[in-house]
């Protein structure tokens, strides 16, 4: 209880909105509510911003893992006994772990000394498509002035035989790609044009009644994979479009095992998004960008924006209980670790908190296996920042989901120079299956040192491309659950299995409108308008 004295009291004690946790959704909400003129208190029991979306040094990463592994309530549950003088009762908040089954191994202990030179994403791999609405949000909200991005220069597909083949994702890409046969190039480019023409026709409704280039309604509702077959795309190209461009998760050729079959309608939308991403920013070579210093910069940028607009930030502040109205059972505020009670109309907490007695309905949606690897060299000699996709069945026959991997080099300030960080993720039903998949994805591309032996066999040079060896790795599993928003406490979405932030941002926007139905989500201001597109990348 000594701790409590170190907490300064918060003044005022009434707010329009209290947010607990500084993950991306909470940070966006804080910035949006502040921008809408609400008084906001933003709390985080951690000493760093970002919660599950943070980027951490090697040491911080390990201690985060330890705290996540020691389950149980993060703070001593206060007696829920109610004060008879008050019209509310305090209900203890419990901590719930999102990440579990950690396996950390250090192959080269020396790396630990460089701990502070790392910025490792907790919710990787993640990148932004340049034309994504998330990037528009950065521009609109004005957070882009706090961020710097660099481009993910290439995408590759694992070819099932230990090699990476490039993804011909653009006109120039198709031109340069020497793995495709000439007729395949022609087919692929025509498919891209078909999609473009279709969307071009839909865009200018009525103006051009050239319906010949429109894809039929029937085709739009059919599975994307069938439509591509109809367009005579060979399996190799289908797989590239599905998993490396449309970023589908499940095996699209296996209707029974697959939980999510992409429709043509959605497939071409994703394709179009990808294509409009290429060349949106003149200095981004590929379709995607990644923030310098890691994903953890994004929530921080929103927090800074919120703070500018008057939001109050208190880190290292545990929340011990939720205050509930005795009469109508509605949430009135929170009791802080310091013992102070703070009141507000609305409370938003991140999904790592639960209220035991009021079991909220949460739905499990499977798991996502994640891995962070530090390697001694790049998988590709000529690029350092790129995406690798392992399509379903490319590693072993019972691989039903695509595995995505993102390699980030030191020019994005996430690791010391000479080393590289690789993030892996895949959807899975159980932890073992997920880890097995990620391990085989890792072994396919780099040398996992045999126990006891140092990484001296770099010299064993079999091919022109030397397989880089593993320096440090962490494997863990995240449960995917959605928590019902009813009951006057709002839950933000947890990190999902996607590469981008689209679903998260959409869910957050929806949440904002739910809380403030009459407010505009980041109204256009002249100030943010002046932020030119080009400013996003420096």
């Amino acid at each position: 209880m000594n701790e409590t004295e170190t907490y300064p009291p918060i003044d005022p004690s009434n707010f329009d909105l209290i947010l607990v946790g500084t993950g991306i959704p909470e940070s966006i909400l804080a910035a949006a509510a502040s921008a809408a003129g609400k008084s906001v208190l933003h709390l985080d029991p951690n000493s760093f911003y970002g919660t599950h979306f943070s980027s951490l040094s090697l040491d911080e990463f390990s201690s985060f893992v330890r705290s996540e592994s020691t389950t149980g309530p993060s703070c001593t549950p206060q007696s829920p006994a109610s004060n008879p003088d008050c019209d509310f009762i305090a209900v203890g908040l419990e901590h719930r772990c999102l990440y579990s089954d950690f396996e950390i191994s250090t192959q080269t202990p020396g790396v630990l000394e460089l701990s502070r030179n790392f910025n490792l994403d907790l919710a990787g791999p993640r990148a932004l498509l340049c034309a994504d609405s998330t990037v528009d949000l950065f521009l609109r909200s004005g957070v882009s002035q706090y961020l710097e991005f660099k481009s993910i220069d290439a995408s590759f597909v694992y070819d099932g035989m230990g090699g990476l083949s490039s993804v011909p994702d653009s006109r120039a890409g198709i031109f340069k790609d020497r793995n495709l046969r000439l007729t395949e190039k022609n087919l692929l480019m025509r498919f891209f044009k078909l999609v473009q023409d279709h969307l071009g026709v839909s865009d200018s409704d009525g103006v051009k009644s050239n319906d010949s280039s429109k894809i039929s309604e029937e085709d739009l509702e059919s599975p994307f994979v069938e439509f591509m077959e109809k367009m005579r795309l060979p399996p190799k190209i289908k797989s590239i479009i599905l998993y490396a461009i449309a970023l589908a998760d499940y095996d699209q050729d296996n209707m029974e095992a697959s939980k999510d079959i992409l429709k043509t309608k959605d497939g071409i939308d994703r394709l179009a998004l990808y294509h409009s991403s290429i060349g949106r920013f003149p200095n981004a070579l590929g379709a995607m960008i990644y923030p310098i210093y890691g994903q953890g910069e994004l929530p921080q940028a929103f927090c800074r924006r919120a703070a500018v607009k008057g939001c109050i930030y208190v880190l290292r502040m545990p929340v011990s209980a939720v205050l509930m109205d005795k009469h109508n059972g509605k949430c009135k505020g929170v009791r802080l670790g310091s013992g102070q009670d703070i009141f507000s109309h609305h409370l938003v907490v991140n999904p790592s908190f639960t209220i035991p007695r009021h079991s909220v309905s949460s739905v499990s949606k499977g798991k996502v296996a994640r891995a962070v690897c530090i390697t001694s060299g790049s998988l590709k000699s000529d690029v350092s920042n790129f995406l690798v996709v392992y399509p379903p069945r490319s590693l072993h026959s019972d691989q039903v989901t695509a595995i995505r991997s993102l390699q980030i080099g030191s020019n994005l300030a996430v690791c010391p120079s000479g080393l590289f960080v690789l993030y892996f993720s895949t959807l899975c039903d159980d932890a073992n299956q997920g880890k097995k998949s990620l391990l085989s994805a890792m072994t396919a591309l780099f040398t996992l040192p045999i126990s006891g032996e140092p990484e001296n066999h770099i010299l064993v040079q079999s091919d022109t491309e030397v397989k880089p060896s593993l320096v440090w790795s962490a494997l863990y599993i995240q449960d995917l659950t959605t928590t019902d928003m009813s009951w006057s406490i709002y839950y933000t979405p947890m990190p999902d299995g996607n590469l981008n932030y689209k679903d998260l941002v959409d869910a957050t926007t929806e949440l904002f409108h739910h809380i403030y139905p009459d407010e505009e989500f980041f109204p256009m201001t002249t100030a943010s308008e002046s932020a030119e597109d080009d400013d996003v990348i420096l």
Partner: protein
Amino acid sequence: MHGRPRKAPKHEDSEASTRKAANLRTLQSQLLHNHHELIYSKEAIEISSKLLEINPESYTAWNYRKLAVEHHLNQSQTGSDSEAIKSILDEELRVVENALRQNFKSYGAWHHRKWVLSKRHSSVDHEFRLLEKLQKADSRNFHAWNYRRFIAALQNRSEEDELKFTTDMINTNFSNYSAWHNRSVLLSHLIEKKAQGFCPKEKVLTEEFELIHQALFTDPDDQSGWFYHLWLINLTIQPDYCLLISSWPSNGADVIISSDINFDCLDLSPFTCSHSDTGTFPLVLYFNQAVKGVNSSTITVDTVLNTNENLTWHPVSTNNSGTAVAWVTHLSLPDLKAGSLRDYPVKVSLGKSPGIVSSNGFQCSVPFQIEFRFRVQNLVEEVKKGLDVEMIVWRDENYQMEDKDLQDSGAIVSLDHLSINSNTEPAASSWVEQIIANEIELFRELLAEINCKIGKLTLARLLRATSAYATIPIEEVLKLYSELMKLDPSHLQYYKDEHSLVLMKKVTSSKESLLRHCWRYKNLKFPSVDNPICLRLNNLSLSRIGSVEHLLWVQMLDLSHNELQSIEGLETMQLLSRLNLSRNKLSSFSALEPLRLLKSLKVLDISFNEIGDHSIDTRRYLFSSPLCHSVRKNLNGDDFATAGKYWEAFLIFKGMNLIQFDVVGNSIMNGNFRSFLRKFLPSLKWLDGEELH
């Protein structure tokens, strides 16, 4: 920079432009004043800078600045202060840069920059940085590319580096005509000088083909790649040698020369029989490319009747360039009375001194030898009476299919003319064969996928290129051109022309097919006289004439009922004496220019064409007028007085000895023209089927 829609000007804009115009006018008049008064003060120069910043198109301002620079340089040269020179020139570069910022496609600005740089006082390094900026803004800006070549040459930058640069630009976006063009320029140089890594050219070309395929297959709708591909094909198939491919008389021929036009060759081959009424007969050499330098020292003609030195060779060409694919000289015949039935051997070979050079710069060094014999035959008196007494009637009933005699005559050596060189001709290299075969296969594959005009055209061109080593699948090529005519009507005439050329190739491809078009002409009134062989190429929808190297022997030719707009190529048929061009689309006398070179032409039918329909023949590239140099050379004042408005006809038919002429059915034909023709062509016996006198 490309594909931006044009916006309608707004009201504010037009107001701003009025203000701008007023400002410009003031600056301009100040500048002109300074220019006239030779004022080169600092303030005066500043005015030109201001003007150029707003309007970089002001050439006078650029020229004024050049004068100003020269003026100041001359002044400072006395002290030869290099710093001062540099600062003067740097100021110029700065002004150009500002002007380019305003309009980076300003010719004047780019020219001024070149002018400054060529003074060689300024650093070139900065220029590459500037180019980088400009080529990033618009990678296709041909001014920048042009300037880049200039700077690269100035700095002696290696062509390999520049080639690498084009590769990079093409990899970024292959729809870049400028980059492909620069690539073709650089590669030509590198191959020509056999730079390291660019020899043998087979390897380089194979790689280039591979590169361009990526572009063509990725986006067949993009033009720039096809242009480069066409250049590559031409570079591949273009013969890098120059040689004789055909002649008249041909090697090994026994030529019968009659002193009369109507000598009956019934029992002789039409290909080796000729006539002469001038005491000479032509010797024609036909090369694979246009050449110059054919004369008595480069070609040796060995015969008892002529001394080689006395022979004059003429280019058979309507242009005055002095180059031609065909060259002609005239050998004199022996005294007709003395020399009956004696064989005269003639030997033609490459002369001792070299000097026959093709227009592409290739030396004709492949030796050849043509040997033939000729015999002179005179006519008996009675037959001579029938001479020229009968009009030629170009009717079907006047022809008789000639099969047996001709088939048997076995004397069609002219079709095998290539044999004279087959041993020495550089064999069509197998790599060319392989490349073309590979290309054909690829484009067949592409066309199986998509319907693509330029793909079809390319396939047709490739198939035609196979002629060097294989027989062309002519029917397929003809079909491709026919499809193209329907698919792309805006280029109909081009496809028609190509179709015609292929059809001509088909007709002349073998002895058999040629003989199918050879008919015996029968004079119905005097069946015993005048039965020449006529090559009938009528009703074939021809719009152009080709494959003339196989037709050097033709003396009577029927091209009626075609779609000819031009008769280019006909001039090489030096033996031609009777020609039917009726019912074609000839629309001016100038289109008949090749006839001027046919000295033996006696009978001409141009009836039912379009001569006189249009005051200007828009289908020709250059419309000739009495003011043209080429025309005035041949048309002196007196002539012009005679010719009057018929000067065009005058030019073509001047010096010709036409006996029979049909012009009916052209709108130019009327009483005036008729009397002009009668006066101007005194040799004429029949005009439009009517006997004169």
